[in-house]
């Protein structure tokens, strides 16, 4: 097993009195794509949001257990610093109503970078990493909202990359995109993993099989709380899963 960039140990998450995640222990291998799959309501997005403490924005949230980034407990870190290292891309592209340039420069500026030359370099390298540069380089002043859906999502990825994270969390990043834009995002993920650790939540099992190196399968128990059922190399999960519930789910026999 590759070295873990992030790790949860006996992690439990509560929304008020409702326990959304139960005893999740999971390693997120460094510079690999890890897919989290499972039926609706199994807690996969809750788990994803735990990696950069996004759940804390929801009132009544409480956690027990531990989550580590590079061996350091994320709950003892400054949350802004954590989110700088663990970026996120959401289901629907959500560019700011600003120019392409300002969308990408937004994060670095928040983190105190003012030098225009440095900002321009960050914008260019981030857009290149997000495979969007060639399509927008001649019109960086164009509104981010004027781009196509697929371009908007790559702009959001560029925005996430601009603050040089170690981990990129992706919550159904292609579910609102057409097949061609989806494949572009998937190709992009393959390139990004050389530099970043990626965790993706997806309902699309073929996508999980295509893009990820490791797959985690989650399912709710009788109390409707999310449990980690199986984790392993994607090729094993999709050809020879150990748990019969994993097999039934990925074969489409329930869910």
């Amino acid at each position: 097993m590759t070295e873990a960039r992030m790790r949860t140990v006996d992690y439990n998450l509560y929304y008020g009195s409702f326990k959304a995640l139960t005893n999740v222990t999971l390693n997120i291998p460094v510079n690999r794509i890890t897919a989290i799959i499972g039926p609706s309501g199994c807690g996969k997005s809750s788990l994803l949001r735990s990696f950069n403490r996004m759940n804390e924005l929801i009132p009544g949230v409480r956690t027990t257990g531990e989550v580590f980034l590079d061996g350091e407990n994320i709950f003892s870190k400054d949350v802004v610093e954590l989110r700088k290292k663990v970026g996120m891309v959401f289901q629907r592209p959500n560019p700011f109503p600003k120019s392409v340039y300002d969308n990408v420069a937004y994060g670095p500026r928040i983190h105190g970078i003012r030098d225009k030359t440095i900002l321009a370099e960050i914008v260019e390298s981030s857009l290149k990493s997000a495979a969007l540069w060639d399509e927008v380089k001649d019109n960086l002043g164009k509104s981010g909202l004027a781009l196509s859906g697929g371009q908007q999502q790559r702009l959001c990825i560029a925005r996430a990359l601009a603050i040089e994270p170690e981990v990129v969390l992706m919550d159904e990043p292609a579910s609102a995109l057409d097949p061609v834009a989806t494949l572009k995002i998937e190709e992009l993920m393959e390139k990004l993993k050389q530099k970043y650790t990626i965790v993706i939540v997806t309902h699309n099992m073929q996508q999980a099989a295509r893009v990820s190196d490791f797959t985690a399968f989650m399912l709710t128990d009788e109390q409707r709380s999310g449990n980690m059922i199986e984790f392993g190399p994607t090729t094993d999960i999709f050809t020879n899963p150990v748990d019969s519930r994993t097999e039934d789910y990925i074969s489409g026999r329930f869910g």
Partner: protein
Amino acid sequence: MLIRETYEAELDSIREALMRLSRMAEVSVQESVRILKNRLFEEGEQLIQNDNVINRKCFEIEESCLNIIATQQPVAGDLRFIFAGMQIAMELERIADYAKGIAAINMRISPGEHIKPLIDIPRMSEKACEMLRKAIDAFLNRDIAAIEEIPPMDVEIDLLYEQVYRELLTHVMQKPEIINDAMMLTFVAHNLERVGDRVINICERVVYLCTGKVVDLG
């Protein structure tokens, strides 16, 4: 209620098609030896022609497997079943080819009675067909334990083949003019020995289906 009824029906139809193809291959082997034993040339001709039907069935199974992969994206146990099923269809088609070969050899043996009574060759055929039935049942029931007894049966077939070969060699030494017929009967025994080997390949696919592991049982 099944969530994927169409998909389940397509898997069932591949399962049934494999069962039918296996039965056709088995009957071909049994018939070829009966034809050889009783020197039945017309029926032999018929068996040779019928081999096309078996070939077509094999292609149909391959096509169904490719279609289900392309349209239903099977994974895990289903994917292993389809992958193994395609290979088993090919093995069955080759088994039927051996039967066709035996019917063809019958036509190249001198007319009239055989140079010796056929005892071990029918035994080989019975053993090979029994192996085939057990292997296909194990595949369809995903029963890895059921294949354990099959490799020793293949060893028995190999021993019978050696016995037939030695016996025919002795006959030829005593009576050199029968060399052509003796060689032909050796070819028949060789074909049946190969049927056993093909069944062992099927057993390897059963292991793959049940465990995901590729093994060599040969």
